[in-house]
């Protein structure tokens, strides 16, 4: 049982407040889409969960079995140790290291080290292209391959909860579709709980169990379930062009 509960979160950069009173709820083995166009606070919310930004108000609880851990009081390192991995915006690979070295660095977390080789095999099965390129420098690969590596590197930490920030950015439409499908597999095959920020509504709602739309740092719409998300009139008219 792994989930995340964000309660009344207020956060920003310096004096500029980006998130105002945001509450979301991600349940065990769900893939939840956090939808919104650029500059509405998607990345800020994910950064708060990963501990990169300290919120000024509110709480973020990682629900892990019977435990409820408040992540707002933990450092990024402690949050990783608690089982939260993040695929950051813009991939943030180590461009001069090889694919394999990037993956190894992803398995720093104590629990991940023991099963490093098993996880790496899993990543290579998930993304066979990475196996072909294991000794190539990460920076020399195509955008799609880099995105695969970024997801695989986060998986190397054997997370319970995976945060993914805009996996579709900079990819050709066909690659976006493949990437989104792979992410959709994670909760079914690995039992992962996934929170994905995305601005590609069409693609994201294909795999999402439910979704939130964030506008100007506030949750404008929260869907009950997948059907609710796909059939919503507001999404249809504003974001899907019809």
């Amino acid at each position, binding site marked *: 049982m792994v989930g995340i509960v964000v309660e009344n979160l207020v956060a920003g950069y310096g004096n500029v407040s980006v998130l105002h009173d945001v509450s979301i709820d991600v349940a065990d083995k769900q893939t939840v889409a956090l939808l919104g166009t650029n500059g509405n606070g998607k990345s800020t919310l994910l950064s708060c969960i990963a501990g990169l930004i300290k919120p000024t108000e509110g709480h973020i609880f990682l629900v892990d079995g019977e435990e409820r851990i408040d992540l707002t009081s933990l450092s990024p390192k402690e949050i990783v140790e608690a089982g939260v991995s993040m695929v*950051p915006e813009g991939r943030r*690979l180590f461009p*001069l*290291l090889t694919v394999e070295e990037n993956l*190894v*660095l992803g398995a720093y*977390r104590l629990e991940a080290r023991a099963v490093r080789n098993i996880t790496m095999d899993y990543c290579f099965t998930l993304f066979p292209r990475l196996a072909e390129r294991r000794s190539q420098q990460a920076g020399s690969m195509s955008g799609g391959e880099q995105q695969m590596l970024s997801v695989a590197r986060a998986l190397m930490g054997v997370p319970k909860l995976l945060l993914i920030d805009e996996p579709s950015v900079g990819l050709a439409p066909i690659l976006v579709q493949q990437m989104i499908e792979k992410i959709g597999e994670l909760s079914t095959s690995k039992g992962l709980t996934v929170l994905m920020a995305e601005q590609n509504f069409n693609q994201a709602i294909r795999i999402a169990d439910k979704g939130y739309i964030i506008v100007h740092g506030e949750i404008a719409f929260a869907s009950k379930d997948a059907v609710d998300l796909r059939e919503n009139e507001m999404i249809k008219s504003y974001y899907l062009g019809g």
Partner: protein
Amino acid sequence: MIAELFVNALISGLLLGGFYAAISIGLSISFGLLDTVNIAHPTFLVLGAFLAYILNSEAGMDPLLAGVLMTPLFFLLGLFIYSVYYQFFEKTSAEALRGLAFFFGILFITEVVMIMAFGVDHRMVSAPYANGSLGGSILGMELSVPYRMLSVFVVASIMTLGLHLFFSRTFFGRASRAVHQDMLALSLMGVDPIRVKRIAFAIALATCGVGGALMIIMIPIEPAVGRLYIGNVFAIVVLGGLGSISGTLIAAVLLGVAESVVSTFLGPSWSPAVSFGILLGVLALKPSGMFGVGDTR
């Protein structure tokens, strides 16, 4: 006759290159991997040399053993210096110019302290391998290698190749190479990037223990002799390519051989000109150095 001179110059150049590798590898780590322009590195080598001198002259200790024993001290000094540097410069993004000034300041303070403590006389150590040479005749050529250079070369090779393996094979080594590429990404892996930098910097400074001992076995030492080497070590690190430890080792051997051959045939005063000529030539063709991986920052 010419061939004999050339082969002798080649051999002593190779040995000199090993010594250069030992005194450059610390800077290759701190400057190449961590972006800390530790211009005081050669001065810390001289400090290491003087400490080896004291242990040798007062306690009769073998200078190489003294170098090994001082390594933890330099490691601790490295932890301290990086913590100060981080707190007052790097954290506030003032590392570019003021950080350089900080290391310049450390250079002068260390140098003045050494002058006050040891005076300006040249010092040297005594050891069984400090004199004499290994000679022999191969293919009709009389070859001769001083034991002094041979022992320096052996120790230097062990240290530099060991560090090279450490930084290319271990988790910590990979993290040190990743830290300047993306600090934020590293912290997303649960690694504390500042801790990685602090320890890697301390390892870089720890090489001044053995490196200093090698220096005083090679040449007589006075407090300001470090300045002579600032040019050499920076040239080697840049020539090899920032961020590439193997590049540094190869560049060190290249410059050692070039210097040795040039001073044999043209005279020692030409050797810096040739060294820096090679550096300029390589940088003109490949701005990131021989094995440099380019700038990703």
